[in-house]
Each structure stands twice: as structure tokens, then as C-alpha cells.
């Protein structure tokens, strides 16, 4: 069987390569899109950071409450509850979950609340060093979230709160 030779097919269209030779207008457009994206990501990052800083300042402000701040004899949050509340806020950052409000607890401590529609959850750091949570929908029986106050247990409770609030 004779071997035939075929001329290779010529490709007259160039495959675009990495080149700056794309025209000034395209370069300008690329630059502007990149700048806009950087600004947007920077803005999202900064606002999340600002929120997180605001939440921390709120916790430290609660520590300055006086005894009987609720007029029924409530103690002010102490160092233990404030330190645990700050730890909860740190753990929340990794979960991308923002508190709705941070309140002093009438039991003595700091509470971090999450509300969305009919769904409520909070995690409470007591002056005795306990970290307990609760969540519910409407008037359904609340579910208790117990922790041993370790990071792992608090993170697990916060994940359940996130799933509950976003359900």
C-alpha cells in the first residue's frame, strides 16, 4: 500500500495569546473592571470588619453596666462572660453569621441574639462561665443547646443556630 503525503492544513486564524497588543480601549476596560472588583471586595471586607468591631465594642460596653441595670437586681456582666462573648464573636466570623443584637442577660452575663422572621436563637455567656444556647420557631417548644464552653462545642452550637436561622 503506497504511502501518500498530505500537506498539513494551514490555520490562517491566529490563536489569541497572552499579549498586550489588544488595544488601549480593551486594556482600559480590563483595568476598570479589576479596580471595581477590588473596591467591591474591599468594601464587603471592610463592612464585615466594621460590624465585627462594633459588636466587640458593644460587649465591652456592657461590662460597664451598673448592678441592678434592669431594676430587678440584675448583676453586670463580669470578666468571664465578656471573655466568652468575645470568643463567641470570633467563632461567628468563621461562620459568616451576624448577630441581630447583643444584650446583657438579666441572669448576669452577655447574650448574643439572632432573629429572622419567626425564628429566634440566642447564645448566652453567663457570669458563672457557662455558655448555653436556645432556638425556636414561633411558639414551638424551644430547643436547648448545651456546651462545655470549649471552642469546638460553641462552634457546633453556632452551626446549629446558623442552620436554624437560615432554614
Amino acid at each position: 500500500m503506497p504511502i501518500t503525503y498530505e500537506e498539513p492544513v494551514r490555520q490562517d486564524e491566529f490563536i489569541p495569546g497572552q499579549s498586550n497588543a489588544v488595544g488601549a480601549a480593551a486594556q482600559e476596560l480590563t483595568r476598570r473592571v479589576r479596580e471595581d472588583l477590588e473596591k467591591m471586595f474591599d468594601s464587603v471586607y471592610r463592612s464585615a470588619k466594621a460590624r465585627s468591631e462594633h459588636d466587640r465594642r458593644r460587649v465591652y460596653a456592657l461590662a460597664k453596666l451598673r448592678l441592678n441595670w434592669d431594676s430587678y437586681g440584675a448583676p453586670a456582666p463580669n470578666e468571664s462572660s465578656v471573655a466568652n462573648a468575645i470568643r463567641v464573636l470570633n467563632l461567628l466570623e468563621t461562620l459568616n453569621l451576624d448577630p441581630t443584637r447583643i444584650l446583657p442577660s438579666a441572669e448576669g452575663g452577655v447574650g448574643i441574639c439572632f432573629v429572622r422572621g419567626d425564628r429566634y436563637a440566642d447564645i448566652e455567656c453567663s457570669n458563672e462561665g457557662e455558655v448555653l444556647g436556645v432556638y425556636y420557631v414561633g411558639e414551638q417548644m424551644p430547643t436547648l443547646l448545651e456546651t462545655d464552653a470549649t471552642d469546638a462545642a460553641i462552634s457546633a452550637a453556632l452551626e446549629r443556630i446558623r442552620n436554624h436561622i437560615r432554614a
Partner: protein
Amino acid sequence: MSTERLFRRYRREDYVDNKFSSLGFAFPKQSVNREKYSAPADVLFSATDEFEGWGVLYFRVQDLPVEFPPDNRQYTFFPKHVPEDEMYPHSEVWCDRLPLTGEYVEPSPGVKKLFRAFLSQRVEIEIEATA
């Protein structure tokens, strides 16, 4: 069960998106005023206007669970009339173990947390807080 209302003052910030946060409730022996002997606004009485802008909420005696928690009935909650020198209607929410001991019993931290949430779900506003 009694439908008598039990009044308590509250701060506006204890309402989070129209939900009363259980963080505003304390235990043990939460103070309330009995409806039988008082008007709702009595809990706001102060010679120095200390409670200006505060509100009044209530829950009913029948809201206090006779057996709690439902899946492990260890405790009962009930109102106890504890008159004070200048506030005769003053009462407290008490807890006892099941079977009854006749004494005040401090529930476990978990049951306390659950009970405060349970009660906060039943709260109604009588006078709205403005500050």
C-alpha cells in the same frame, strides 16, 4: 388554670425584631405584680420617674408550666404572692421539683435556660416601651 395576669416592666431593647428575648428574664424568683391587686402601670411607679419610657409586659398564671420540661418532667413552676412593704401585689415565679418538696428548688442551668425561653414566647405587651 388561672388567667390572672402577672405584670413586669421591660426595656425596649429586650424586644428584638418584635420578639421578647428571654435574656430579659431572670431566675430564680422572678419578680412580678399580681393583676388581682394592681394595675399594670403600678410596676412603673417611681417617685423619681426612674422608669420613664419603660414598658409593661405580662404573662398569665396558666402560662407557667405545671410539668417541665415536657420530655423529662422534673420541675413545676408556679406564682407565689410575696407582698412587700410598699408593694402589696409583689409576687415571684417559683420552682419546685416533682414530686413536690414544698420548698423552692433551683432548676439546672439547662432547664432554667429552656424555661426562660418558653416563658418569653408567651409574653404580651400591656404598655409599650418608648425608650
